[in-house]
Every structure is written in structure tokens, then in C-alpha cells.
């Protein structure tokens, strides 16, 4: 039963201490996870792109743009890093 007061303190966050994940580490995680997402999206688009180019080479330019579009999500995640740094 002696645990109970401590637990209440933890739950109500009455302790003044550093968070489990520091802000900068959280930002780094955000970038990492976003990159995973972009990578997964590009997997599908990339293989479709290669298929399309194999049939018609003139599609190269258009297909290249489509393939890198998921990359924007990583750029958005980088914004988070700069927000935390400032």
C-alpha cells in the first residue's frame, strides 16, 4: 500500500524532472519515422515507375518527379527540428 502515494505523484506529475525523451531526441525521432514512411511510399512508386519506364522511356522525367514526392514529408519533419532548436 505504501506504493500508492508514489504512484499518485507520478501520475499527477507532481515531480519536477526532465521528460523521458528530451525535445531534441523527439525531433530526431520525428525525422527518422518520417523517413521510414517516405521510404515505404517510394518503394511502391519506384517499382511502378521502373515498370512504366520499361514500357515507355519518354516517361522518365514525369516518373522521377512522382517518385520523389514522398520526400516532402521528410522536409516537413525537418521543420520540427528547427522549431525545437529555436
Amino acid at each position, binding site marked *: 500500500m505504501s506504493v500508492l502515494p508514489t504512484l499518485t505523484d507520478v501520475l499527477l506529475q507532481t515531480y519536477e524532472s526532465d521528460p523521458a525523451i528530451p525535445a531534441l531526441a523527439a525531433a530526431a525521432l520525428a525525422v527518422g519515422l518520417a523517413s521510414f514512411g517516405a521510404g515505404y511510399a517510394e518503394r511502391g512508386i519506384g517499382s*511502378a515507375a521502373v515498370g*512504366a519506364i520499361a514500357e515507355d522511356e519518354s516517361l522518365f522525367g514525369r516518373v522521377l518527379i512522382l517518385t520523389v514526392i514522398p520526400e516532402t514529408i521528410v522536409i516537413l519533419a525537418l521543420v520540427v527540428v528547427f522549431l525545437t532548436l529555436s
Partner: protein
Amino acid sequence: MSPTTRTSGESSNYEYVVARVRARRAALFDEDDYRKLVRMGTSEIARFMEETEYEREMNDLGARYSGVDLIEYALTRNMAKHFEDLLRWAEGGLYENVARYLRRFDAWNVKTILRGIYSGADAEAIESDLIKAGELTEATLDRLAAKESIEGVIEGLDGTIFHEPLEAALDDFEVEELLVPLENAVDRTFYEKLMEGLPDAQSADRATQLYLEFLRAEIDFRNLRNALRIARSGADIDPSEYYIEGGTLFDAEEVRQLAGDTDQLVDHVRDSEYGEDLEAAIDDLEAAADLIGFEHALDAALLEYADTLSYRYPVSITAVLSYILAKEREIDNIRAIARGRESGLGLDEIERDLVML
């Protein structure tokens, strides 16, 4: 790559295959091309084909054949090439499902070889009639075509899905001296394997469910066609002998009752789940009593259904399926045009023979 092996844990590469298949689907002949083709003579058709997709086949075969034969061999060879490509690209579950459907060409080839050897044709003549699109490799087919006897062919098929059923049918063949039991065995095996090993309808995702539905429609239409032909010819054949399991339209008992009477058969189809899609075709059938027209309407309905599905579920087997059907239609159409022009049919008659969307 025999029809029994290759079950793998690989994942499917839908994106790659679908992108390539769609490009090829778009490159097929359209209505304008057909309109041009029906006005051409056979040599003009041949020249037209040399300038398109069929260039390589036309040049390869040009020295050996001429006229309509050249066109026809070039068409089947080109189709075989494209379908081989599909099997080469696909991996994992997608490969399984594509191969499942393309095995119909294996069935066709095995039947052609059996017939050829039965009628005493030489290996070269048999080989020229094969469609090398299925899972049986070219080397296997050549080896089979060179066999001396039916028994030899069946032995050569050891390790494939056709071996056992053919072996079982061999006794009937020896008693009756007719190919029918063997051919039935091949067809039955194909259709039985078509539905076998597919995931359960409840647990599969939506696209696979639709694939199942599509295969079932294919079997139903096949049964319907057989029943109609038997009803029309008035021959004294037990239709349930040709009945293929797996469809939902009728069961073996119903087929036996309905095949005697075309009107009842038509009513049955009208009341079934296909009634709506086939409405125009059924009206046609009742009015003109034209079996060819009805069969073309069945083909068109199937093709349109596959097309709709491929737009609704872009990253799935349905796009591949719609390409396979469209390509087959193209081959049939060009062949119909070439044959029609050769025998001097009028424009209207040829156009009626085409399946267009």
C-alpha cells in the same frame, strides 16, 4: 516452372506488374484501328501489322507462311510472348493467381498435342499450333510433341497437374478409342485447379474476393455456353458430363433439366445474378436466336466487368486480368477480320463478329 511447383513466400510486386500491364493495355488496337482494318485486304492487314506491335513476329514468320496463316501465327505468337512476360514479371501471390488463369493455355497445348499425335501429325505441324503461353516450358512442349504415342505424352507430363487425371482416363481411351475422355480430363483438371487453393472468400481482401467472383463467372459462362450449345444442337448428350464444378449459376442437376429447353435456360439466366449485366445479350438471344451474338455479348460483359474492377482496385490482380482478356479479344478480332476478308464476307458481317467496347 512446371504447373505443380513454385509456391513461395515472396511478396507480390503488384506496382511493377500493373504499371507495365497498363501501358500495354493502352497500346492495344482501338476502335479506329479496327475500322481501318475491316476495310483492308489480307495483304494490307499483314502490312499494317508489320508497322505495329506485331512487327517482330511478322518478320520472323514471314519466310515460312503467307497470307492469313501468317497473320494468325504472328498473332498467337505475339500473344504467347506477352503472357510469358506476365509470368516472368510476377512474383509471390500475384504469380500464383496469374499462372492459375494462364494454365488454360497449358490445357490447350496438352489437348493439341494429344489430338496431333492421335491423328498422326508430325512434330513440326503440332508445334506450329501450340500457344506457348502457359507454365509448361517450350522445351517440355517440344519434347511432348515429338513423342510417338499418347502413352508417351502422358508419361512426359509426369510431375504436372495433368499427369494423374490423364493416367486415370487412359483406360477409357483404350476401350473407346476416342479422345473425348482424355480431353475431358484435361479440361476438368484445369477448371478444378482454377478454384483450388484460393483463399477463403471471407478472409481475403476485397480485390481477391472479386478475383474469386470473376473466376466463378468464367466457370458459369462456360457452363452456360456448353448448355446452350447442347440445347441448340439437339444432340443426345448428357450435359452434366460436361458440367464444371465451382460455379453458382447452376448445379449438375439443373443443367440436365434446362439443357433440353432453350426458353427455360434463358429464363433461368435472366433470374440469376448475371441477369442485369447480360440483359441486352439475353434479349438479343431471344429475338434473333443467334448463338454467336450471345457468346460475343458474354465476352464483352466479362471484359467490361474486368475493366471496371481494374479501375476500382488499381493495385490488384484485376488490372492484369483485364489486360489478358483485352489482349485475347484483340487476337480474336484481328483473326476474325483477316478470315472474314479472305472468305469475302461483307463489312457488316465482319463487324458483327468483333467484340468491341
